[in-house]
């Protein structure tokens, strides 16, 4: 294992300390917990958004804590759901009386731990609700899930639900919008190479030199199949096909695109992928209202990428284009 770390047991703690040092204008630590919240509480009471999950997906989720997106993020051990007490602390820290919405990626452990946090917070009289993101069309069930996995599309839920919360909307309205995003977003990824969980010390899986895995999950869970490396255009064609087969779009509809790097993929390659995505969507008569390119939901140093396509209506479009000011996403 070759990593720039000190000790495997301290990676999450030291990362959080580094994030707070880097972005004190955005985030602060909830003392004694693996929780980052906004450095300054919003001036007007608003619905608070909390997300989180295992670490190793940076900048998700703490990188999206800030105005227009999340209010708090909980960091579990690498690829392991945070425990309920951690989520509960985050909820308590961000609640300002209008309720809290938890954005959970669909993994059995995450769902259970976050649901227990809801029960703990509810017992304190805090109104908490949840949405569960399951955007990955690759496989119907996976090593860590019942049902589809939640992957990069989660960031678009943060963005849009965050913008809605910023308008002062009530909890049920913010939840409705978040659920609409989840209903309208589909993703699929691929991997060129594995990643190594620091505590495990060895790669999660092994791919041959010329081999790729299609539909790979963000924790190295198996996808649909392995195949010999093909061109960027061919791979992109396949992924977009799978996404659109799951969510048919009619000519004239508007979409947003996220080409997400898994950690070790150069921006150059992500742009090459996006060139093809844009061409394919244009061919189908679709309008791209907004494109995001970069590392949004990574998988440590895994090489590969995912494509997310979000179907927009006027409400989602307006919220997507609204301002955001966070460590990992700034939008005017």
């Amino acid at each position, binding site marked *: 294992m070759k990593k720039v770390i000190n000790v495997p047991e301290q990676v999450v703690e030291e990362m959080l300390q580094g994030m707070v040092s880097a972005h004190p204008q955005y985030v602060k630590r909830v003392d004694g917990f693996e929780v980052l919240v906004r450095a300054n509480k919003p001036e007007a009471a608003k619905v608070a958004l909390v997300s989180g999950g295992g670490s190793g997906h940076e900048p998700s989720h703490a990188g999206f804590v800030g105005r227009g997106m999340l209010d708090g993020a909980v960091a*579990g*051990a690498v690829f*392991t*759901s*945070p*425990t*309920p*007490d*951690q989520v509960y602390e985050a909820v308590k820290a961000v609640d300002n009386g209008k309720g809290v919405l938890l954005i959970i990626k669909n993994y*059995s*452990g995450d769902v*259970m*731990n976050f*649901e*227990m946090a809801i029960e703990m917070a509810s017992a304190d009289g805090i109104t908490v609700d949840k949405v569960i993101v399951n955007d990955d069309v690759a*496989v119907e*069930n*996976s*090593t*860590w899930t*019942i049902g589809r996995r939640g992957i990069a599309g989660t960031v678009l839920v943060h963005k849009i639900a965050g913008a809605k919360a910023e308008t002062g909307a009530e909890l049920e309205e913010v939840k409705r919008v978040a659920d609409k995003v989840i209903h309208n977003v589909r993703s699929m990824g691929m991997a060129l190479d594995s990643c190594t969980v620091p505590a495990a010390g060895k790669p999660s899986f092994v791919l041959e030199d010329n081999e790729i895995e299609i539909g790979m999950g963000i924790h190295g*869970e*198996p996808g649909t199949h392995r195949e010999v490396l093909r061109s960027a255009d061919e791979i992109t064609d396949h992924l977009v096909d799978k996404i659109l087969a799951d969510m048919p779009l009619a000519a004239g509809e508007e979409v947003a695109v996220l080409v997400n790097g898994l950690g070790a993929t150069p921006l150059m390659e992500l742009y090459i992928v996006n060139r093809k995505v844009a061409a394919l969507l244009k061919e189908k008569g679709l309008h791209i209202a907004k494109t995001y390119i970069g590392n949004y939901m990574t998988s440590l140093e895994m090489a590969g990428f995912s494509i997310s396509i979000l179907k927009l209506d006027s409400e989602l479009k307006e919220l997507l284009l609204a301002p955001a000011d966070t460590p990992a996403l700034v939008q005017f």
Partner: protein
Amino acid sequence: MSGNLYEVISAVGEMIIGNRQKLTDLDAAIGDGDHGINMARGFEAVKAKLQGMEMESDIGKVLKIVGMTLISSVGGAAGPLYGTAFLRAAAPSQGKTELDTQTIGLMLEAAIAGIKERGKATTGEKTMLDALVPAYEAFQDGANTGKTVTACLELAYEAAQQGVEFTKTIIATKGRASYLGERSRGHQDPGATSSYIMLKALVEYLRR
């Protein structure tokens, strides 16, 4: 049933910690290979938490601490499931310093209901429920025919053992192993095994 509460919990914890590798190996075959590591970490935390509480006799109070500690230290899916089970079992035993068959029956029933609710699972899906539900039923059969607590727990332990064997014959439809489908057949479920190990530790303690 009486005996030193602290010693009972310690005996259960020691047997889980002693089976760290076995549980991990079972999990590696059909899951992600961390069940033993996570459960051992949880019971190490329980041990630390109960330091200084050696003389505490309120069973519900101690089980509540065990449940909360497992929830905050195990993580993954096993933490919420076992944590919920202990928390639920704490309710019928609140304020009690000794247990009769009726109370233990209620505790097992509550624990199982908690696991089913939390995991949205039922028997026959290759989970801990395939050990716990038969164990509960065997316990109740014993209680209904007027057997002692120890005799009832012996029956529960044997049923749990058979439950673990049963998990080898079925495919997983819940939990991580479900992804393997047909490939999960032939392997015993790590969660059912850890449940069985806890009952085993309890029975062995009572036999001493």
